[in-house]
């Protein structure tokens, strides 16, 4: 009887600890990269997205963004990384290796082309995954419907070159998306404060919803 009580109490304590651990809100980390690109672009976008996620889901998330370099150990503390800019991305070998390890070990990187990033991002990602290619996701992929429905794929938030928005992914061996890269849409600009880009409210809402989808997908898979 005594033992059972001890086991019972231990289980409860253990679960509580686990619950406590898991009850801690997580942060989305913005990647600080070298190369001269504006990694720090639109500082209001992550906090706004986090607020939206907090309000519309049960996910415990910190509204304040974290910032992390790819060569830091803390990289592994963040389940979701966010990368954006207008280009000039450069990963050192160490950074490439670190990022590769992070992603292969369950990490998730969401990269959003803020116009002009495409070339350098693809080049640097080739360093990280020389053997893997970006694959465009079909509209039927779950990332477009996990929380909010996007029947026609990514919403087009900003005009850029007037092309259709595309969502690319690098998968791991088990079919898990490690890197989700959005091109010709600029989802993250839609998360920024309204007065920054003067986007119509419906566009911002679309962007926040898609952002929620990405984070939810990242956490669930």
């Amino acid at each position, binding site marked *: 009887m005594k033992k059972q009580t001890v086991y019972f109490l231990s289980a409860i304590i253990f679960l509580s600890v686990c619950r406590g651990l898991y009850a801690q809100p997580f942060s989305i980390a913005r990647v600080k990269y070298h190369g001269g690109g504006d990694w720090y672009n639109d500082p209001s976008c992550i906090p706004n997205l986090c607020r939206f996620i907090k309000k519309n889901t049960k996910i415990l998330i910190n509204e304040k963004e974290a910032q992390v370099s790819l060569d830091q150990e803390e990289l592994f503390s963040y389940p979701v990384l966010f990368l954006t800019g207008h280009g000039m991305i450069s990963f050192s070998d160490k950074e490439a290796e670190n990022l590769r390890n992070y992603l292969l070990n369950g990490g998730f990187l969401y990269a959003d082309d803020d116009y002009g990033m495409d070339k350098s991002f693809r080049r640097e990602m080739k360093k990280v995954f020389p053997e893997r290619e970006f694959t465009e996701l079909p509209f039927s992929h779950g990332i477009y419907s996990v929380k909010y429905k996007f029947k026609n794929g990514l919403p087009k938030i900003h005009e850029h070159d007037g092309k259709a928005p595309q969502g690319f992914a690098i998968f791991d061996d088990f079919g898990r998306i490690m890197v989700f890269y959005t091109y010709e849409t600029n989802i993250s*600009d839609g998360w920024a404060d309204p007065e920054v880009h003067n986007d119509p409210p419906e566009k911002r809402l679309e962007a926040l919803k898609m952002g929620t989808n990405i984070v939810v997908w990242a956490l669930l898979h």
Partner: protein
Amino acid sequence: MNNTDLTYLKIADRLAQLRRKKKIVSAYRGAFELFVFVACGLFFLLIFEAALWPHAAVRIFLLSLYLILTGFILFKKVIRHIWSLFFRKNIPDDDTLAFEAGYKTGIKDRLVNAVQIFRDKKEQKSTTSEEFAEQALLSVWDKIKSVDFKSLEPFNLSRTSVVSALLPVLLNLVLFVVFPVQTEAAFKRLLLPGRNYQRPQPFFINVDPGNIRVVEGDTVKIKASPSVKKIRTMELNIKQVSGSGSRVVLNHPFEYTLYNINSKTQYFFRSGRVRTPVFVIDVQKRPVVRSLFVTLFSPLYSGILPQKFPENQGSFSAITGSRANIDIISSKPLKSGKINFSSGKKKQIKVTGKASGSVKFLITKQDNYFISIEDTSGIINKSPIKYEIKIIKDMPPEVEITEPGADTDLDENMHLDLRIKASDDFGVSALLLKYGIFSGQEDSVEIFTKEIPIRKMLKEILYNLPWDIADLDLFPGDAVHYWVEVFDNDIINGPKKSSSKKFIARFPSLFDLYKSADEENIAFTDTLETILQKSSGISEKLNKLSDDLKTGKKLTWEQEQQIKQLAEEQKRAIEDLNSVEEKIADLTKKLESQNMLSDETLEKYNKLQNLMSKIDSPELKEALKKLAETVEKAVDKEYKIQDFQQAQKQFEQALDRTIALLKEIQAEQKIESLIRLSQDLEKRQKEINSSLQENPDFNELAKRENRISKDSEKLQNNIENAAEMLKESHPGASDSLNKASDFIKQNRIPEIQKSMSGSLKKQDSERSGSLGMKSSKALNKLSSMIQQAKKSLKRYKQNALAESMMRASKSLLMLSDMQESLAENSGSQSAKSIAGSQLSLIAGAEQISDSLEKISRKTFKLSAELKKSMNQALSQMNRSLSFLEQRNFGMMRAQQKRATASLNRAVITLQQTLNQMSGKQGQTGSSLDDFMQQLEAMGEQQSMINRMTSDLLNRGRLSLKEQAAMARLAQKQSALQKLAQSIAQELDKQDDVLGSLSKISDDMKKSEQDLKSGNISRKTKELQQRILSRLLDAQKSLHTRDFSNRRTATAGKNILRKSPSWGVPKVSDNKKITDDILNSARARYSPEYLKLIREYFEKLNKKGGVNDSTGSATK
């Protein structure tokens, strides 16, 4: 009583009888005399009266005299006798009578004596006896007893008496008989002596009008008509009461007119002794308006208070609709009055008092008036004063649009700030903005009105109206014609309207914008060429002056003035240049704001402005200043002119280069504009095509398609014009453009678009869609073809440049060889020969330097390093000559070798430039894009260097081959370093880029040294990493600039498309295992080895994969 007494008594009685008789006779005689007197008197009086018509006074006098005399005579001659006869009984002794009786009886004086004696006795005065007395008495009695004493005094009239009595009677009778009328009249007049009798005239004068009453100012005509015709002249006497008299002699018909009689006048006529009575012309005064008071009440809207004019000011100015009150005071009591207008209108004056009146009337137009009054006598005033009523025109209002005040082109904000100025003399009641949208396709245009809220009744209004034209949904090419209408507050005649000048706010189409830019550019070129021409003229004149000075001639005063004038002309040329520079800057800004410039062209414009700002160099300014002073100061004229000539030459060169660059920009911009226009058409076509999918407004789309069709035709024209323009200078580009133009014609693009417009009007979606796709594809192809022209342009330029640079490079190489051989062989040659050869080499180097200078005008590619090398070479060549002169052959050779090295460096730099140009297509090396591409290329090369260095570092001890590879890396690093340096020099104002590049250059130098010396370490690796980061930073700086121009954070429109197919790769387990193995091995093996392992496994995967359970490779 005794006898004597009785006798005495008897005698006395007898005497008394005699006396009585005598008295009677005297009375009779007196009466007779009286009668005669009266008759004579009467006669004379009658004569006198009839003849002379005396005055009444005279008559009275004469008559009085006559009567007095008559009375006297009557009394004396008659009445006295009668009196004494009847009333004087006791007559005193009258001795005379006794005497007289005595004589008449014959007794003479006895009687008297007797009587006397008796009387004396009786009175006892005498002493005589009584008897004597008695006796005397008795004796006398006896003698006279029988005598009738009565008979002693007979009443005998003598003949003379009778005649004298009868004569006057007779005369009177004659008078009465012969002149009965006159005598009778005279007699009657004598009977009434007190009257004045008019002597009857020989004729009478009839006077017309006689006495008359006239009104003051009247004219009276007087006429005299004599009763006899023989009268020739007549005298008119006139006298006015207020003035003096006058006499006028009139001839027949004896008329006289008196004009403007103002006072009482008397007049009479006279002809001889005939005179008319005095007639009177009585003058009655006319009534006069003595005082007049006008009060004016202006209409309310005018805001003018009632005005009272001064007394007797009847003329005034008033606004139409004003009411006037006129009060008058007359000089005489008024019966009635009227105000009479020259327009014919009349109005009764109301009599308000004895001599006052009032009238009110409305003023509707300009007029004159006078006041006529009638006094109680019925007399009206004459010649009343005419007063004038002037109309103050209520002028129409005025309005003008002061800003923008000219036709404008709308920018993307589609906002127009209007500044409106309106004014009116009495107040503004409304302000309206009127506008219509003209797109050039309509027959008529609806005019819209927008009321501008203003405070009414203000006389002056200044209104700022921000007008958001975006609401009007304009299309490019549309124009808004607008103007302002203002209304005043004239409620009498209705508000008057005025309109401002019409302005146009154009929403310029791309065609308009480019056309405008083209025109400005052409104007700039023309102006600059004119400035260059003028400058050349100045140079020529200066050269001549300079030549004169060099020959020792002194400058004349005229020449000195000419120098001054030339300096002034140059100043003006510089001012014109500055003006063009400003205009170019404005145009650049405008084009940049409208996104009409590519970064490349923008960069060229900036470079152009930079060039132009340097043309007006401080040296030129200084030279100009000094030149102007040459006139004042006598010294150094020649040098100052030379200084100026030098500065002038530089000015012309720089200007020439600027013109060349501007022309280049124009050509490029022309093609760019065509590309933009074609892309714009394509975009618009796509929009229409996509609009067809979702509830299209066919009419709207048809209009838009029609515009596209018209714009396509315009584009075709522009392409043809551009092809023509570039035919000679850039034949390749011209050909491409011609092909593009042919393409439009062959594919009938405008016609397709027009057909589509027709289909849209018919709401035929299917046909419209098909035509739209066709048009879209054609436009896309067209755009590509025009882009081809751009590439041809660049290639042509590049090729031409490359050719020139090749030639220069070859020449430099030859020169370098010749310099080297001279240095080596100078020992075996004479000094003269060496000098000659060296001089030729110097000339050759200068020539090559000039040609490089010309090349530099066409591109920014040539670095400062090249110029520096050339200058060094020339300097060293010249120094070698100096040392030759000093016979210092050693130094001479050293300089020659250095010159060779400098020439070699120049060759290398030129070659590198050429390599870069040929290595990268589309690089002109002069634009932002080119710098970006260069930096990117440098980044890639540096990345390669970094990788290879890293590889070598990991090898440990290097083989010879590896050492050689390291040396080559060093060279590459060196070349990169030089390139970084040259870019830094070009981007002299790009501090952020420059900063990065400067540091890059320094780091590259260090890296090069490490590689050269073979001392590569981790530090070298870090250094190279840093270089790469900085290169990327530099790119970022340029890209940010590029980014800021290009990026438009406009909200995107959702694009419908088909979903990509499901191509998510299935990564095999083999891969996973490969990676796991690699991961586990990672810590243990070197990167190189790890790489080999990876490759091995990848190959394995390709062939058959790895056995899942054992991990061994399968076949």
